[in-house]
């Protein structure tokens, strides 16, 4: 707004100076013009910076909204979904509903609180008209020395995919291992302390203490932490084109009366649950320029051991299990906007023993010796950074003796502030 005025003033001054300067040597004149040009530019810059919003709204947090929806077909009823041979996790692990359905709509608010803290809220509006707090946390900005403290509810840093929001996943649903061992994801209420080592190779170590709000824990309602975890990551580059990260995590929980009903009998587990996750991811793009083509390979291995007491109806006896699962997936962007992905999932029933003499006939869900597998194929099209449409096909053998063939079409739209995604 002021710019034209300043320019006019400057030009007028320049022409007046020019009149005076005719008798002076050319060099001095040039110096004058240069000084004036500099002045005009400085004033322009000032005008530009003062054009920024000055009202209270200038401090609004960055707001973004994620909208999702699916249209799905499946040969089995998603309402009956179960992973045979594994204790049900109680999370939202079923495949997409049949027909048209709205996915979770996310509202994200993020901003620096002050010079010391940053905070973020991710609220999710479910298609069942409920509001869930997915994340609401603060993190420190200036502890220094590579340390960061986080507190509140947040997606835990265990595993590779766990801290990634669902809309940024490469497939519409979580790997079977996440469904069976974490109920889809682990986002506890608690604190996280993380340290990045001062080395050229990324060495990141951290620990979390939380309430133990959800599966595999059972919200113990006691003083102190109901769950704790440790995680470590190593990562770096190989040349300009390849980046990698590998990690190891451990989650320790003590569920009390974690119960579910199977074949008409109430069962509950009380004891200790220990979960190990080994993960790696590798990303490649020609010269590190991912715009046209790029490739991503990721895999995770889960191993869980639980020991304690199993209450079966009115009787109680010893219980212990060692179960595992893994997945490997790769996504290839073969031309701008188009990506193709494949994922293989497998769970291993392992050993489950109980002191009650129960067999698979008594407790089919827990004791059926079934190793679930799933093959998933997807292709997606990304119009811009803010919209994506995906077609996904899956043959899911989570249920013993049954193959669930699934087809779904999904859209993911992101409105508002430009989000930044983790590696």
């Amino acid at each position, binding site marked *: 707004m002021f710019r034209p005025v300043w320019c006019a003033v400057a030009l007028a001054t320049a022409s007046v100076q020019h009149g005076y300067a005719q008798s002076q040597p050319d060099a001095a004149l040039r110096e004058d013009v240069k000084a004036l040009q500099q002045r005009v530019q400085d004033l322009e810059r000032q005008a*530009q910076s003062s054009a920024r919003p000055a009202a209270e709204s200038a401090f609004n947090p960055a707001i973004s909204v994620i909208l999702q929806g699916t249209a799905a077909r499946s040969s089995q009823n998603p309402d009956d979904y179960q992973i045979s041979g594994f204790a049900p996790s109680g999370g939202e692990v079923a495949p997409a509903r049949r027909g048209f359905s709205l996915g979770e709509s996310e509202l994200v608010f993020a901003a620096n609180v002050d010079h010391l803290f940053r905070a973020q809220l991710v609220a999710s509006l479910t298609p069942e008209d409920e509001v869930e707090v997915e994340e609401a946390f603060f993190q420190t900005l200036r502890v220094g020395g590579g340390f960061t403290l986080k507190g509140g509810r947040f997606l835990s840093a265990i595993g590779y995919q766990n801290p990634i929001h669902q809309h940024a996943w490469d497939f519409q649903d979580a790997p079977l291992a996440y469904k069976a061992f974490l109920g889809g994801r682990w986002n506890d209420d608690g604190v996280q302390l993380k340290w990045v080592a001062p080395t050229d190779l990324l060495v990141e170590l951290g620990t979390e203490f939380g309430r133990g709000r959800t599966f595999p824990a059972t919200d113990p309602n006691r003083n102190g932490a109901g769950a704790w975890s440790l995680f470590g990551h190593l990562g770096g580059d190989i040349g300009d084109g390849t980046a990698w990260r590998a990690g190891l995590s451990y989650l320790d929980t003590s569920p009390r009366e974690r119960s579910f009903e199977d074949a008409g009998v109430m069962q509950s587990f009380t004891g200790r649950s220990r979960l190990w996750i080994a993960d790696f991811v590798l990303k490649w793009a020609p010269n590190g320029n991912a715009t046209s083509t790029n490739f991503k390979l990721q895999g995770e291995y889960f191993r869980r051991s639980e020991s304690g007491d199993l209450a079966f109806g009115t009787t109680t006896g010893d219980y212990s299990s060692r179960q595992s699962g893994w997945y490997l997936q790769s996504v290839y962007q073969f031309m701008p906007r188009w990506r193709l992905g494949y994922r293989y999932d497998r769970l291993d029933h392992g050993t489950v023993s109980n002191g009650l003499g129960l067999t698979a006939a008594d407790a089919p869900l827990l004791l059926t010796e079934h190793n679930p597998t799933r093959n998933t194929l997807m292709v997606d099209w990304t119009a*811009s950074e803010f919209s994506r449409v995906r077609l996904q096909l899956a043959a899911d053998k989570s249920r013993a003796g049954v193959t669930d063939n699934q087809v779904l079409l999904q859209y993911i739209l992101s409105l508002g502030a430009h989000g930044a995604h983790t590696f």
Partner: protein
Amino acid sequence: MRLLLVLAFCFLSWPAHAALNVFACEPEWASLAQELGGDKVAVTSATTAFQDPHHIEARPSLIARMRNAELVVCSGSELEVGWLPLLFTQSGNARVQPGSPGYLEASRYVVRLEVPGVVDRSMGDVHPGGNPHIHTDPRNIAKVAAVLAERLAQLDGVNAAIYRSRAESFNKRWQDAMRRWEQQAAPLKDMPIIQHHKGFTYLIQWLGLREVGTLEPRPGIPPSTSHLAELVQQMKRAPAKRILYSSYDDPKAAAFLSQRTGVPSVMLPFTVGGSDRAKDLFGYFDDLVARLLGAQP
């Protein structure tokens, strides 16, 4: 025990009185910091001239490098919005958080072009702060050099005199070079050109070229066949003299248009390191001017 050994090793390998660690988001600022700091600085660049700085991931090696930085120099104006904020929050480095002396946003010190009055995503990837590719005008480099030298002097007071004298020497050589480039490029004035992305807008303004179109239908949206067909029609009516694309752009669209219209397409290094000749900032502008002149039919 093994963990303790690893930790001990990490601390021991941390040099106590080494050069000032400078983390540059783009190679041009790395090159500038090197010019001004000489052996008093250890410079690393997060990107290369073959990478699109809009689309970088906050990959592990960048978190590790950010962790050790004492000064972070970036273009700003939302260019690094998809990855830089994560590096700040994940590296646990208090010295370089925005708002501290350890963070320098170059675009704040120059007059930004194409600052939009209205922003909407239907316009493509527009930057509310204006076009962020300020480094393609050497006058901007000179301005940022002055700020950067002062910042180095502030952060590393012991060597302040060295930074200031190097800045003076750089500025002198830079002003001479600018005069040379401007003389060489005089025949290019008013030349109509088409560019792939709005990556050379500042260069175009400096040399007085005229942008008559872009291969991207909207900023950040890859060229489409329908848009290229429109450009072919447009160039029949009003031919451009050059089709410019950068070292990180896919050359196919420029080649397609060049073939249809007979107008030469010219690859310009996007920044330092984008061509054999662009080894430093001087070589970069030498090469830009030479390539623009060289394609004369």
